[in-house]
């Protein structure tokens, strides 16, 4: 099949799945609903592999014109190049595994068909986002994944105990994203003003040909793009929605809030690399915000007791890590980490889903412990995921993190040190999570213990596949030290606009060795520290009241939510209350009451005329005709 037909089929498949399940899903048996949704995803993935095999040059597929006004022309156009193919593989691959997992995880759920409809719809929107050839298509997909994310976070909105909280979490995510989206939209308008087009290629070629806009313009565009990215990719200051988004079902957290949607911001920056390369101030901002996010989120993750919250903060931290790489111009390194992160974070989330499934929807790690005996497959795969994210040597996370650290060392040694600390914290909290959940003694009640069970095959199979990917994912871009040839660098650089022009950092073998040594020592040290603290001393996380000092700060997420509350929410509430009291009650209400009163009074007056007697109406009609005729006779 030709490449354009392949791509269109891939796009159509999840949409068809969503349409079938959305319209008829209610009356279909669950197994059919799940099979349709999962089936289309696997077919899409197979086709994506075909695309990957056949395509080596950037290809454009023109679909149709959306807006054509004067000079403005916005097209629905697709672009298939290295970057979008890589994302296509991640989205369809990880997506299909998570669909499979969901078939088991959501089995008991009322809204089974709704869940798969949203999930397929999300995949469709995400594909539009990554396959579009212009910022307009990206924006379309961007909003599409936003709404699906909203729907899925608040999926259990009718839950008796937590339904309200789920709804609030969904709303929070939606509103935070809206702030970012505004930034993105402004960036789009600025770009239209400056370049007159939103096509990546046209903007990129203009920039690469040396047609640079003024410094302030470029700074404004890139900064607004980055604000958009902070919203979607949960960076300071718009990151607080992501931990709350864990209210959604766990497969959703794995797919949307770990593997795919939250990397949209990174994708955006990598796509616009030609812009960012010429805006060093923005790059600096990205670098420091990424760094701060990474460190802060890692710190917050240290004392979380909800298994999914730990992973959520870990995601924020890793995304920060990737943004640091972007800030230093390490686009390929960033995409590399996005890929491996998609593998092991999806694995970890699905693993936690399996744990939660086994624990009958208990998410508090203080009530777990010793689970390795009961759910062996989940245990092994979770361990692999933990090691991969912690950066244990030769797992996927090791290589990708190392590449970012190499960039950092090349850039500035202070940044390198801070990032190393962040990586160390990552290793510590992940091993803490692992040890507390799987090692030691079971701390839950007997009823739960009695029912502990390994998940069915359709849940463990994705875990196993993702575990294998987490193990070997690093091979994508093996440094030359181990005989690798930086395959990903070449692949992305070959056909993605701008990426071939960007200088990649390749350190010498001895430096690489030194870096990897330090990273290994840190990871192993963290492993040892966590082992001593949580297994040897068998210490269980304290309840919130006993915490003091730094630990309390961490457990309460640095009081960021409270800070935002005091800084933004409260003042808005005050202003609203003041407006209500003084403007609304004193002025607007009276004005409107006055209007109604005038209308009421005049109506009371005139209604006497409406006798309801036909003759009188006729009389007035004749009078009117006479009046009109007289007017015209006098006038002419």
């Amino acid at each position, binding site marked *: 099949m030709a490449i354009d037909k392949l791509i269109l089929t891939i796009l159509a498949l999840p949409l068809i799945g969503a349409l079938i399940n959305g319209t008829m899903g209610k009356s279909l048996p669950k197994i059919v609903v799940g099979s349709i949704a999962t089936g289309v995803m696997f077919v899409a993935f197979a086709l994506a592999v075909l695309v990957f095999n056949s395509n080596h040059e950037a290809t454009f597929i023109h679909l149709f014109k959306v807006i054509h006004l004067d000079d403005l022309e916005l097209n629905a156009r697709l672009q298939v190049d290295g970057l979008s193919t890589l994302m296509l593989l991640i989205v369809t691959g990880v997506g299909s595994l998570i669909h499979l997992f969901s078939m088991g995880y959501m089995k008991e759920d009322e809204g089974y068909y709704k869940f798969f409809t949203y999930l397929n719809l999300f995949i469709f929107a995400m594909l539009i986002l990554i396959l579009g050839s212009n910022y307009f298509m990206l924006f379309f997909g961007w909003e599409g994944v936003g709404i699906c994310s909203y729907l899925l976070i608040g999926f259990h909105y009718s839950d008796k105990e937590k339904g309200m909280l789920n709804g609030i979490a969904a709303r929070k995510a939606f509103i935070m994203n809206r702030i970012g989206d505004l930034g993105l939209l402004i960036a789009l308008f600025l770009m239209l003003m400056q370049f007159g087009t939103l096509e990546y290629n046209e903007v990129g070629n203009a920039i690469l040909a040396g047609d640079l806009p003024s410094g302030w313009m470029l700074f404004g565009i890139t900064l607004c793009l980055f604000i958009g990215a902070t919203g979607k990719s949960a960076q300071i200051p718009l990151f607080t929605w992501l931990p709350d988004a864990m209210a959604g079902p766990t497969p959703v957290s794995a797919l949307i809030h770990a593997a795919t949607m939250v990397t949209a911001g990174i994708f955006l920056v990598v796509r616009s690399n030609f812009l960012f390369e010429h805006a060093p101030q923005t790059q600096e901002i990205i670098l420091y915000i990424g760094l701060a996010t990474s460190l802060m989120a890692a710190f917050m993750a240290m004392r979380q007791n909800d298994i999914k919250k730990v992973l959520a903060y870990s995601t924020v931290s890793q995304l920060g890590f990737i943004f640091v790489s972007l800030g230093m111009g390490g686009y390929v390194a960033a995409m590399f980490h996005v890929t491996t992160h998609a593998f092991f974070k999806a694995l970890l989330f699905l693993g936690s889903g399996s744990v939660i499934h086994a624990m009958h929807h208990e998410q508090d790690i203080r009530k777990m412990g010793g689970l390795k005996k009961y759910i062996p497959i989940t245990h092994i795969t979770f361990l692999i995921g933990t090691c991969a994210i912690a950066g244990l040597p030769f797992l996927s996370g090791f290589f990708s993190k190392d590449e970012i650290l190499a960039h950092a060392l090349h850039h500035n040694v202070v940044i390198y040190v801070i990032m190393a600390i962040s990586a160390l914290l990552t290793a510590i909290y992940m091993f803490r999570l692992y040890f507390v959940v799987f090692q030691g003694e079971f701390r839950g009640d007997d009823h739960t213990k009695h029912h502990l069970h390994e998940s069915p095959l359709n849940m463990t199979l994705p875990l196993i596949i993702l575990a294998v990917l987490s193990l070997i994912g690093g091979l994508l871009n093996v440094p030359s030290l181990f005989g690798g040839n930086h395959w990903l660098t070449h692949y992305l650089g070959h056909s993605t606009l701008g990426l071939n022009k960007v200088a990649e950092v390749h350190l010498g073998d001895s430096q690489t060795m030194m870096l990897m040594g330090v990273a290994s020592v840190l990871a192993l040290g963290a492993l040892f520290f966590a082992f001593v603290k949580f297994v040897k001393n068998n210490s269980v996380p304290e309840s919130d009241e006993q915490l003091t000092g730094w630990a309390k700060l961490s457990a309460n997420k640095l009081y960021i939510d409270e800070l935002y509350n005091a800084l933004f929410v409260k003042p808005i509430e005050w202003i609203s209350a003041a407006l209500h009291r003084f403007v609304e009650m004193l002025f607007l209400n009276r004005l409107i009451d006055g209007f109604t009163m005038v209308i009421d009074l005049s109506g009371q007056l005139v209604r006497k005329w409406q006798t309801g007697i036909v*003759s009188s109406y006729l009389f007035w009609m*004749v009078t009117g005709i*006479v009046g009109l*005729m007289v007017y015209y006779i006098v006038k*002419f």
Partner: protein
Amino acid sequence: MSLELIATILGGLTVGSALMVVLSKHPVRSVLYLVLTFFMISSNYILMNAQFIAVVNIIVYAGAIMVLFLFVLMLLNLKQENEPRTSFLIKIASVLAGGALFTVFIAALKDGVVIAASSVVEANDQGLVQNLGQLLFTKYVLPFEVSSVLFIAAMVGAVMLAKREKQMID
């Protein structure tokens, strides 16, 4: 007798019978006077050499419509005694309004520029069936067809309204 005299007499008779329609107390008499008025108007049509319209006028108005009116009158069995009375004041006001209407119309028409009779064509046979038929089925064929739809709608509407089962007005 000159045509002028005939036309004047016919006009007078038309106005007279029209007045009687309004003035007669008994509804049935009103109907009969109206039939007479229509006959007078038809005579006027014939005077103006519009034979087709004259015949149709008698068939449709004097024949069909007025019979329908009579039918309804008989059906409802209205008598002179329960004929509603109008107050004197309203009568005065109405006549004044009608007079004003007439005056104003005349005032408006008086100034209208009428093309002199010299430009009027001699051959005066446009009122014959053949001419009208040709015009009706060429230039005005669409309105003609549309009017048939109007008739169907009116028929269905009349049947619907006159059905007994449901009370339309409380």
